[in-house]
Structures are given as C-alpha cells and as structure tokens.
C-alpha cells in the first residue's frame, strides 16, 4: 500500500500542489495577455489620432520618408505604421510580463537575456530606418545636383550614393547587434576600397583619353562653347 502510495499518489499530490501554485499564475498571465491586447488596440487608436493631429503624414511626405516606405511595400501612411508598431510593442511587453509571471526558470532566463539584448535590436532598427531615410535624401540631392551639372550618369550616381549610405547604415546596425563585428567592418572596407580602387584603375587605364579630355576641357575650356546668357 505504502509503495503504491509513494509511486502513484505522491507524484499526483505533488503535481496537484504545483498546479495549485501554477494555476493562479497562469490565469493572471492570461488576464495580462488579454489586457495587453486590449491596451495595444487602445494605444494604436490614440497614437494614430495624435500622429494625425501632428500632421506626421505631411512631414513624412516632405522628407521623402513616405516614398521610401511606399517603395518598401508599406502603402499605409506613416501615422498608421507607427501606431501599429506601438500597438505591437505594447502587446509584446505584456506577453513578456505574462511569461515572466509563470515563474518558469528556463523562460525567465531566456527573457532576461532577451531584455539585455533588446536595446541593441532597437538601436539597430533605428540605425536602419535612419540610414534608409538619409540614403533617399542624399540620393535625391545627388541626382538633382548631377543633372544640373549635366552629368549623363546622374541616375547611376544617385543610386550609388543612396546604396552607399544604406550599406553603411547596415554595417553599423550589424555592428550594434554584435554580428561578426570586425568581419563586417573589414568586409565593408575591402568592398568600398575595392570599388574606389577599381574605379581609379578603370579611369586611369580604360578612360585615359577621357580623363585627358576632361582635364583639358576643365583647364582650358574654349569660350565659344559656353552660354553668355545673363540669367538675372
């Protein structure tokens, strides 16, 4: 009887006792989850209104961010995208709190590590967004300047500037995440240096005559080729 009690009943009793301790936590966690979802919906609603009052969509249009988002597949206005991000941040926060409330050591350990890493993800995301916006801005500025300077490769220059700024921001973001820190910096330096070196060689050998003509034209441009219009 004692053996049966020890083998069969005691584990169930222990399970029952643990369940009694765990069940309130589980219920609390479920409640937290529901509150998190509801609060997330509310946060999205209220921030969407605030962003629209701030005229954020017009600002994003002006800065070129709207175009950037649109090209990245986000057709919605920036105010909606941001309020959605805030909604999911709220929900995820509540999910984490709910999971921690379960008091499972493995989960707690994982969450602790995640929390320590979270700022890196946030900063990396910020760097990427900023890189994308700056890439578009400088890309547009350089294409306009190149067109006004009469450079036939204006489109290529614009794209190159845009890509360079974005790649630089990717490198910084990966460095922030601690992924292959030195490898990425070295790789970037090799690729970037290689491109410059390739251009130098190509221009030096392939475009020797072109370079000569260009410099000659710059140094001694015949007067007859210029317009003499006084625009003002």
């Amino acid at each position: 009887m004692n053996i049966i009690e020890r083998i069969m009943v005691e584990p169930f009793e222990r399970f029952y006792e643990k369940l009694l301790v765990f069940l309130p936590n589980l219920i609390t966690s479920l409640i937290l989850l529901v509150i998190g979802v509801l609060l997330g919906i509310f946060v999205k609603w209220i921030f969407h209104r605030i962003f629209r009052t701030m005229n954020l969509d017009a600002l994003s249009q002006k800065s070129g961010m709207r175009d950037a988002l649109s090209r990245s597949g986000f057709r919605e206005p920036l105010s909606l995208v941001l309020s959605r991000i805030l909604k999911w941040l709220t929900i995820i926060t509540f999910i984490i709190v709910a999971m921690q409330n379960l008091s499972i050591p493995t989960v707690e350990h994982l969450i602790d590590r995640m929390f320590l890493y979270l700022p890196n993800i946030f900063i990396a995301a910020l760097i990427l967004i900023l890189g994308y916006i700056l890439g578009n801005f400088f890309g547009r500025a350089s294409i306009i300047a190149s067109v006004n300077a009469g450079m036939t490769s204006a489109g290529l220059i614009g794209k190159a500037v845009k890509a360079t700024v974005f790649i630089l921001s990717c490198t910084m973001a990966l460095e922030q995440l601690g992924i292959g820190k030195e490898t990425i910096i070295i790789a970037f330096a090799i690729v970037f240096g290689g491109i410059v070196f390739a251009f130098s060689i190509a221009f030096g050998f392939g475009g020797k005559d072109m370079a000569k003509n260009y410099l000659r034209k710059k140094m001694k441009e015949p007067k007859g080729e210029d317009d003499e219009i006084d625009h003002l």
Partner: protein
Amino acid sequence: MESVIRPDKIEDGIKSIDNADILVGIPSYNNAKTIGHVVRAVQGGFAKYFPDKKTVLVNSDGGSTDGTMDVVQSATIDSLQSILLSHKVNPFVRIATPYHGIPGKGSAFRKIFEIADSLRVKACAVVDSDLRSITPEWIELLIKPVMEGEFDYVAPLYQRHKYDGTITNSIIYPLTRALYGKRVRQPIGGDFGFSGRLAKFYLSEKVWETDVARYGIDIWMTTTAIANGFKVCQSYLGAKIHDPKDPGSDLSAMLYQVVGSTFDLMDTYSSVWKGVEGSETIPTFGFHYDVGLEPVAVNLERMIDRFCLGVQELGFVWKDVLSPGLFDFFRDLANPCRQDFAIPDEAWVDTIFSFAHAAHRKTLNREHLLRSLTPLYIGRVASFVMETSDSSALEVEEKIETLCKIFESKKKDLLNNWD
C-alpha cells in the same frame, strides 16, 4: 574737395558726418578692375546733378583680395571740367567698409542700409560694381524721383539683349506682375533708388539670415516696397553692360535663391496678392533711346540635352509637383530627345504655379524642389531662343507681354489651390 573714411574709423567717421542728403551704395567682391569706373560715374552724378547736396558714397565689400577697397578710395575724376562742370560742388564723402554676416549681395546691402539710417539720408541708390555702362545720369535717374517726385522706390529699366535676363523675363517679371499688379519690368535689375524711409523699413525686417542675404535681395526689395504700399516707379537707364558672368557661378543656386525668395514672399504677402486682379503700369522716367547690344552666344544643343536629361532622371521628383497631364507632356517632349521642341506659355505658367504651390504646401524638401526646376527652366529658355531666333527686340517684348497676360489669367487657378 572730398574726404575718405577708412574701414577702421567707420563709426567715428559716420558720427563726424552726422547727416547726409544722398547716399549711393556699391556692393563689391573682387571688382578692382571695374569699380573705379562706377565710383567715377557716381562722383560725376553727384557733382553734375546734386552739387549743393551733402552726398556719401559707400562701398560695402565682401572681403576682396584684389584691392577693390583701395580702388574705391583712390578713384576720382581728374578734372570736373572734363564733364563740362564749372559750378561750385559740395564735397562728397566716400566710405569703404567690409560687411559681416552671410556672404552675399544682401548682406552688403544691409550694411549700406545701416549707414543710410545712421546718416538719416533722404534718398539712396545702389548700383552694381561690375557695371561698364553706368554714367552720371544713372544717379540722377535713380535719385531724383525720390528727392523731387516723392517716390519711395525706383526700379531700373534697361535695354537688354533678347536672350539676357531670362529668369527675369520667364519667371520673376510675369509672376511678380501677376501677383502684385504692378508692371515693374526689371524687378531684379540690381540697381535701385529708394527713400531713407524705405531703407529704415528694410532694416527693420527680420530676413537677414535667409536667402535674402544672397541673390534674393533684389526681388525682396522690390516686392517689399510694392506689397507695403510704398510709391514705386522706374527709370530708363539705357543698356546694362557689365563684366562677363563668373564662369563658376552656379545657375541652379541662382535660380534656387531668386525663385525661392519669390515663393517665400508669396507666403509672406499672400493676403496682399490674393486681392489683386490684373496689373497696371507704373510711372516711368528717363529718355528712351535704342542702343546697340553685343550678341549673346547660346549653346542650344547643350540646353536641350540638359532638359532631356532632367526629364529622364527627375521624373520621380516632379510627379509629386506637376499635374499628371503636365508631367506626361514633358515626358513626351523629351522622349525621344528632339532638337525642335517647344514649351508653350500655358505649360510654362502651369509649371511655375505648380512649383509655387508645392513650395507653399511643403510637398518636398525646399532645396530639392527648387533645384529640380533648373532643367525645366533651361528647356523653357531653349524653347524661347528657338521661337525668337528671328524676332526683333520689340517682337520679343510682345511675346513677354503675352506670357504676362497668361500668368495673370491663370492666377485664379493658383488662388483656388492655395488654401
């Protein structure tokens, strides 16, 4: 006969002069070759037309390294008898001083206004330092309407080559005329006369850290005078011949500053121009005569290439600015890139109004928006050059008049979309 105030003694010099009747300002930057002639013309003007007035010449310099200020201090008419003067002439004071602030013509003017205000002058004029065609009569024509005619602002009226002043002819004159209703033919001419009262008003405006401090000063002075109800007139000065333009001067920067200032003023004075319909002539002084003008070289092929390149590469910027119809029109015009294209007046007016509207709405970064106008402007100039290749000066003026009327008739479209 005359006194020179050195740059390190400006404050004391102004205090010792105390007051003056007339002040003529010359902004400069490395103009040693030409400024001597301008100084002598001003001196001749003072002696010939205002012998009994207390006169001051101010050179506001942007840090010249070629001795411009030394030339200003030393240039003089050797004998007044050479300009047929025998009467007694009051001495005139010349001040050569560097200005501070943003480098540009506007900052130079600010210094001139400050000195004019300190000396409580009755009438002022500003003339460019690279002028080769200035005569003593210019001083009379710019100053007398203020001294004797009770005008506050005298704009210049020049005879220019049909291909000169293209920003003026295709954008600034028609737009300013349509907006504010006054036919000031050279609103950004560069040589102006104005009252001491108006100089004081200019100084009180808080614009000296903006593009007004650069190329924007001319349109700002004209628009501010008109929009604030000052009495405006113009004087015929003959031909405007000046040093060849600086090859390094950037057209897109020029266009950005001038058009940007004009668009900014549209925001500042929207309550004024919204109520204006049509336009009226303003009093014009001076004896009108024809002068021979030097031919102007135009590289049409390069202009068309620039326009086509712009259409090819900047479509993504313009699609948010121009209406779909106008955008398609430019795209079709440049594909394929032909040498025989035309941008009609209506399309050009719609383009300028679209850019003005986009600047007002802040649709795009301001500098990107305005600089992206350059290829379209070059296209319009190319179209104008082709259209007027066989036209006389009078016929060209008639074409500009037609363009102005279209600006005026389409103003209601701009108004409807403004708010």
